[in-house]
């Protein structure tokens, strides 16, 4: 009798303790309370072990990174989740796609919010990826041993833009249809050169574009399903894979870049609140799996100025992620994503504009399709990719505007870059360009001599001058990057606000001619 009631009592006790025990058993080593336990927690968790077990305190400062990398990843996560939700209702067939967008907006519960969130998070992602690239450049965080990670980052930039571009077509409204028509025409612009050189019968860029990009002679159902596949499956997989490598390389290259005197500078600051460094003496060395050529968690050297990733790094990451979510949510609640009329191949939008991040390119394309659409972007990407291999200096790594020249050079290049772009554009807008002065001029001359190439030459000249003046490749890189960034901003602003029907210059949309 006594045994039965004991067993019953035990049963009830177990039931009451079950919730807490469920939480404890989820973690094989229990909730971590010592540093060693925290290390094992990160190391042994399938989702978390991409992180290093310990993080340098310098890396956790807000001014080191401004949280831009995590913000980009967070924006991607938001687009991923909202994108999957949208896939339940979106139908990737012309006209039906537009109807499904209307249904999502008006009828699907939370459809309006989710769609807005998806669009805004995508815009935020493009902006933060550009800012993240700028931050990485200006802190010279691409230097040895992080050169390859910089290249992965360039690849991520391209994939991000491709994701945004493929997604732009999916609503199948006038905005989408004509923006993608512009994009596809830019893709076939090498025709300008092959035609002028007479090479088209051997290499037909238009044929290739139609075959690969559109799957048809015009933008239609083939292009839509193709872009849909790229947007929801192929590109996200590629992005995820590249992201994994990108994060992995951060860790394996020794964490985020920091200045050589980071430890000294940190000592000068007040101790932040951290958990105690060790609460028990280390009883074993790290596993063999942690030993990689050269850049391992230092064995035998105390972990000064590093803190356990759990919880310090995770709070930082979570904070930035939540902030990104807050910004995206605020935008979504306040502003609707655009949806114009149903796509009508017989009624072109005038002006037909590419998505905003391509408007600078479109501005250049208005002068020369090949140079603006393919030539200069490729030169820019190539230049970006080569930066870590041309700048092999070590001075100023991890410092904002570090290296020869510094902030003053950046300021000077910004002024020069903006000024040159504005002046060349002003000349082209006010006086026209070669074709207006000499109507019979051969196409190749216009391809070679146009505002885009001129601007590139000016920037290159400035950069070379800086290299010589400061006797440093870094100075040249600082000048060139800043010039290009400012030029990009100026061209994008002109393309967005000052170009109207027929790509004519207007000071404001109120001046646009009516039909």
């Amino acid at each position, binding site marked *: 009798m006594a045994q039965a009631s004991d067993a019953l009592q035990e049963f009830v006790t177990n039931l009451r303790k079950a919730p807490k025990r469920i939480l404890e058993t989820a973690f094989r080593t229990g909730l971590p309370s010592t540093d060693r336990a925290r290390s094992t927690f990160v190391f042994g968790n399938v989702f978390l072990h991409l992180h290093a077990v310990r993080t340098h305190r310098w890396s*956790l400062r807000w001014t080191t990174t401004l949280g831009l990398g995590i913000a980009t990843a967070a924006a991607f996560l938001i687009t991923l989740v909202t994108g999957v939700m949208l896939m339940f209702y979106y139908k990737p067939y012309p006209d039906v796609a537009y109807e499904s967008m209307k249904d999502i907006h*008006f009828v699907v519960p939370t459809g309006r*919010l989710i769609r807005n969130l998806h669009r805004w998070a995508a815009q935020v992602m493009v902006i933060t990826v550009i800012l993240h690239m700028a931050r990485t450049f200006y802190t010279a965080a691409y230097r040895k041993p992080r050169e390859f990670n910089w290249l992965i980052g360039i690849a991520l930039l391209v994939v991000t833009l491709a994701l945004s571009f493929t997604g732009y077509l999916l609503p199948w409204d006038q905005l989408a249809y004509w923006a993608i028509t512009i994009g596809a025409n830019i893709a076939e612009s090498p025709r300008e050169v092959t035609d002028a050189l007479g090479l088209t019968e051997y290499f037909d860029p238009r044929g290739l574009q139609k075959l690969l990009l559109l799957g048809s002679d015009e933008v239609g159902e083939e292009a839509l399903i193709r872009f849909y596949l790229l947007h929801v499956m192929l590109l996200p997989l590629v992005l995820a894979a590249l992201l994994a490598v990108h994060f992995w390389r951060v860790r394996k290259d020794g964490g985020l870049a920091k200045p050589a005197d980071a430890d000294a500078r940190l000592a000068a600051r007040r101790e*932040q609140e951290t958990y105690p460094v060790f609460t028990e003496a280390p009883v074993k060395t790290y596993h063999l799996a942690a030993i990689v050529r050269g850049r391992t968690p230092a064995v035998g050297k105390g972990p000064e100025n590093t803190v356990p990733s759990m919880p*310090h790094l995770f*709070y*930082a990451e979570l904070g930035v992620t939540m902030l990104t979510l807050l910004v995206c*949510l605020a935008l979504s609640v306040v502003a609707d994503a655009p949806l*114009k009329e149903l796509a009508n191949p017989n009624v072109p939008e005038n002006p037909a504009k590419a998505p905003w991040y391509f408007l600078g390119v479109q501005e250049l394309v208005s002068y020369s399709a090949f140079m603006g659409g393919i030539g200069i972007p490729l030169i820019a990407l190539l230049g970006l990719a080569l930066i870590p291999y041309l700048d092999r200096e070590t001075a100023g790594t991890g410092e904002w505007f570090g290296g020869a020249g510094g902030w003053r050079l950046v300021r000077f290049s910004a002024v020069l870059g903006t000024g040159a772009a504005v002046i060349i554009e002003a000349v082209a807008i006010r006086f026209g360009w070669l074709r207006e002065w000499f109507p019979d001029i051969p196409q190749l001359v216009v391809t070679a001599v146009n505002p885009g190439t001129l601007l590139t030459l000016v920037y290159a000249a400035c950069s070379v001058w800086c290299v010589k003046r400061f006797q440093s490749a870094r100075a040249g890189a600082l000048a060139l990057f800043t010039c290009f960034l400012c030029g990009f901003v100026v061209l994008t602003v002109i393309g967005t606000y000052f170009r109207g029907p027929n790509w004519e210059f207007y000071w404001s949309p109120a001046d646009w001619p009516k039909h």
Partner: protein
Amino acid sequence: MRKNKLLLLISSAGALALLVWAAVEENFLREWRRIQAQGRTEEGPLRVQLRQIVNRGLGTKDRCVSCHVAMGPGEQGVGGAPLLKPHKPVVHDPAEFGCTVCHGGQGQATEKADAHGRVAFWPEPMLEKETTYAGCGTCHITLGVPEKNRMKAAVAAFERLDCLACHRVDGRGGTIRPGGGGMEGPDLSRTGITGYDPEWYAKHLAKRAEAKSGPWRDAFGPISPLDLALLRVYLDTRMAAPGWVEAKSVFLSSGCLGCHKLSGVGGDEGPDLTLAGLKDPGRLDFTHVAGKPVLENWFREHLLAPASVVVGSQMPPAAVLEERELAQLAFFTLSLRRRQLNDAYVPRDRMLATRFGRREFARDGATLYGAFCAGCHGDDGLGRRLPGHVSFPSVANPDFLEIASEEFLKENIRQGRPGRRMPGWLKEDGLTE
């Protein structure tokens, strides 16, 4: 780390607040929910849910009934708010046809401005109340309509001959049999669609001969052949939309078909008018248009001064000057919205017009002249002299008519005048002698 914890806390709180706000706004503050919350049926308060009328044949999903609940299928008993009035009795049951096929607007929308289509980027705003009957033109084509004077005479004949004593037309007239058994005579509002007995006159006379007293003796009498012809015109054009048919007769007196095509019949100088009423007002220039920026006002201005709204237009201004006729022309053009229809929904009149070659206009000379020629040669035939246009010659000048042989006139009509604006009509399929 404390700063990061604080950042996490504040951002999470903010994100949570925004999500809660979004949830509240969607589930409690939407206008259609608030309207339905006021609704009452016999059983109690109305159940608040999204409502729609789906018609796969017409390809519509009309959510108008989320606000206009009483117009939905089976919901006529709902009341409690000014918006919850049932639809007026109409021929086409809204429960089957939906709303947008007649009224226009954006059926899929659930917000008022979007649903009424009076927003940017929706090309088909809802028809204003005054022009609601323009929606009939989506599916219907009235056949055998004469020019306006003959139309007026037909209407006058029907009224004068006191047919309304027994018959009801468009809600007017008719008497109920004193002994029970319904109306004295059938409702004639839609004889243009349903057709009518061609022997009606003989049968009426026979009934009159039999009758000793009552309405047959008093109200009915012999009718002259001229009046009979007019009555035939009247009955052939009854579509339960009188304003629309009268507007068409004005259209067929203004010579529009001389330059414009309508469902394949007409001239080539101007654009096809078959879908004119579906023009997207968002793409039109309203700087010279008086009144609200709606399509019928644009049409009105176009008729008065074509070049002011369409750059480079060669169209002469409409010959009508009366304000009412101008409004009727604009209204009729608004009704030209003959989009492709699922075969199940093509009415008999449209089938006859588009596939069997029956003419929309009456075949008498006055109507043909009014439909094709009056725009340039004037409604009195004496030509038109307009600034900015080559003079259009008179064809009704008695001296000219005395000299010109019938063959000469016919040849001019067949071949036109090459080098001048007179088009040839021989190539027109079905141009009969």
